[in-house]
């Protein structure tokens, strides 16, 4: 029996049928960030509070007097979803202890875009992770400040043309490499860190489920294809996410108590050109720059493989 032909039969067993991020939001066609949020909510289930940083997802989902959220949801500002999430987490803990709310675990989940996480929210995120709140942080990385019109962020990849670092006769787009935030989180000794992409929905859902179970901080870095900002066809959003993984541009892995493992594996990486050529933001890249990107991607990928092969779980390092 084919899973695809019998989707209605299989899907509920794999995925929560309930919807918590619902129709009516105003995200662009093909927005993989909105899809990722929908999947995240399914994985979280009803006992979660979402703390949303300012950005596309907050703006498209909360136009008063409407809301796309069927989970309790709080938006405060751009740089502080981790800090506001710390407060929610602390409140849930103390109010439960004092018997002022029902006695069952409810997860505080802070979310933000790459701008709200890699850049302006990095300090608040670092503080929250260091303090060890029972808090899941999910970064939806579409590699630029999309809400304000595709400006460069610390997560924008090398060479990408953005509205604040555009390509032109005297510029080849972003001249710095993407910041490795996942490693920064791992360096905080966060017990559960993962990368994910909604193009691999079951992998992503399982990771959110795992992260939810952690009694402490957890971090998931989601690559969210943004057809509008990447200047690619909206129907390509899912395949584009897969290409990011297949080329090694965005490896999908998890780090549990210090132990690395690739959760999406490929026997051989595809050339990065397969990924870059489909996106208008890379249209100007010369063959030489594509080569530079290729070398860097392989180097970073090998660094990661080395960690997968050689790093141990903390528990194995005792004694």
């Amino acid at each position, binding site marked *: 029996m084919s899973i695809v032909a019998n989707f209605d039969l299989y899907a509920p067993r794999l995925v929560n049928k309930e919807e918590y991020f619902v129709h009516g939001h105003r995200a662009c066609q093909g927005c993989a960030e909105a899809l990722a949020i929908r999947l995240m909510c399914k994985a979280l289930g*009803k*006992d*979660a*509070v979402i*703390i*949303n940083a300012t950005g596309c997802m*907050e*703006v498209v989902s*909360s*136009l*008063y*007097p409407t*809301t796309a*959220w*069927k*989970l*309790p*949801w*709080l*938006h*405060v*500002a751009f*740089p*502080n979803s*981790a*800090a*506001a*999430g*710390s*407060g*929610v*987490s*602390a*409140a*849930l*803990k*103390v*109010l439960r*202890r*004092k018997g*002022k*709310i*029902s006695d069952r675990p*409810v997860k*505080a989940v802070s979310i933000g875009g790459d701008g709200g996480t890699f850049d302006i929210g990095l*300090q*608040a995120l*670092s*503080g*929250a992770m*260091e*303090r060890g709140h029972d808090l899941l942080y999910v970064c939806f990385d579409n590699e630029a400040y999309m809400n304000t019109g595709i400006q460069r962020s610390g997560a924008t990849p090398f060479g990408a043309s953005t509205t604040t670092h555009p390509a032109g006769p005297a510029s080849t787009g972003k001249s710095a490499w993407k910041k490795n935030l996942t490693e920064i989180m791992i360096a905080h000794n966060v017990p559960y860190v993962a990368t994910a992409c909604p193009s691999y929905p079951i992998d992503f859902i399982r990771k959110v489920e795992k992260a939810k179970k952690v009694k402490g901080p957890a971090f998931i870095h989601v690559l969210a294809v943004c057809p509008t900002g990447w200047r690619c066809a909206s129907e390509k959003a899912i395949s584009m996410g897969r290409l990011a993984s297949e080329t090694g541009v965005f490896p999908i892995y998890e780090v549990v108590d210090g132990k690395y493992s690739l959760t999406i594996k490929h026997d051989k990486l595809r050339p990065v050109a397969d990924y870059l050529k489909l996106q208008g933001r890379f249209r100007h890249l010369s063959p030489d720059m594509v080569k530079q990107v290729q070398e860097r991607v392989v180097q970073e990928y090998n660094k990661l493989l080395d960690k997968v092969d050689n790093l141990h779980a903390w528990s194995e390092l005792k004694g």
Partner: protein
Amino acid sequence: MAKRVGMEIALAAAEAVALCKPDVVAAYPITPNTHIPEHLSDLVAEGKLDAEFICVESEHSALSACIGASAAGARAFTATSSQGLLYMGEVMPVVSGMRLPVVMAIGNRALSAPINIWNDHSDIMSQRDMGWISIFASNGQEVVDMMIQAFKIAEDREVMLPINVNLDGFQLTHVVEAMLFPSQKEVEKFLPDYKPFAQVHPDSVVSMGTLGLPEYYAESLKARDEAMKGSKKVIVRTWKEWEKIFGRLYEPVMKYRTEGAEALLVTMGSMGETAEAAIDEMRSKGMPVGLVKLVLWRPFPFEEIRAAVKGCRSLVVMDRAVSFGACGPVAAEVRSALYDQPDAPAIVSEIIGLGGRDVLVQDFVALAEKGLKAKKGKQTEEYEIYGVRGS
């Protein structure tokens, strides 16, 4: 009968907050407020206060954490000063816009540059229009009382606004004073448990902090303004209730020996205490002067100010902050309150006590004398920064 207990006022503020049993305290150190959160963390460490104390990495996060906690239904408290308050600046209007009854103590301090840790009111004046109720204490007892009153006022369903209680850095925070503390039982009776109006929790799914387009934004602000204006009634009611229980009366504007006064000094904060001594001295010499102390800064007590100064010929408004190139902020408000009044007094605007510069009895005397000479319509200066070298 309760006994007076001598202690540093910052610690007393923390003791008063602890009596209110906050669920979450989030704060970041900055002189001169630091002893308040330090002492609260002591109380948590000693098991005397059941609260989550969040040692945040910045003031921005301190207030953000309070917003998260308050939105989740917790009673939340923070404290700060100066640059720390400015660092909170981005989220200050969010607290009031979301109608969260967060309480904050501000150990008032000057702003950089030059960096200066001592007292004036520049910090809170920069946050004047953020939709927070602002109250000023002039001594330790007031600090204790106002901290407790603050939670009750903020959480009143007719108000639902954040409050900052201002206590002058060093002049109050670091001074040891003998104060009366209500018992835990008395506070519990006065201040019921916080019952949130809305709460981010799966048992009551709600979206908070949504996007307000032009079609709705103004309504939201008007509602906040109405709540702010209406809060005065609740504040006065709360203060009357306090007086009934504890015998200490608070009013938006407090008068001191104003009967028969031709010139009145107007102060806000700890200066009021020294001013009283100066008034006593001048009165004993037969000078017709008195004092008006502004306790409530926001909402601004227009009627009370008008009533308090009725019949006097001149006012000397003493500000501890400068609105550069424009005014002393309190004087500007007092002027606007009196502009339309038929017998409005002459107003002398003096900016004084900046960056911790002492304001002595002789300064009040000099300014009162200036007030007595002031004539309406004959004022030549908008304001003066008093006692500055080279002027």
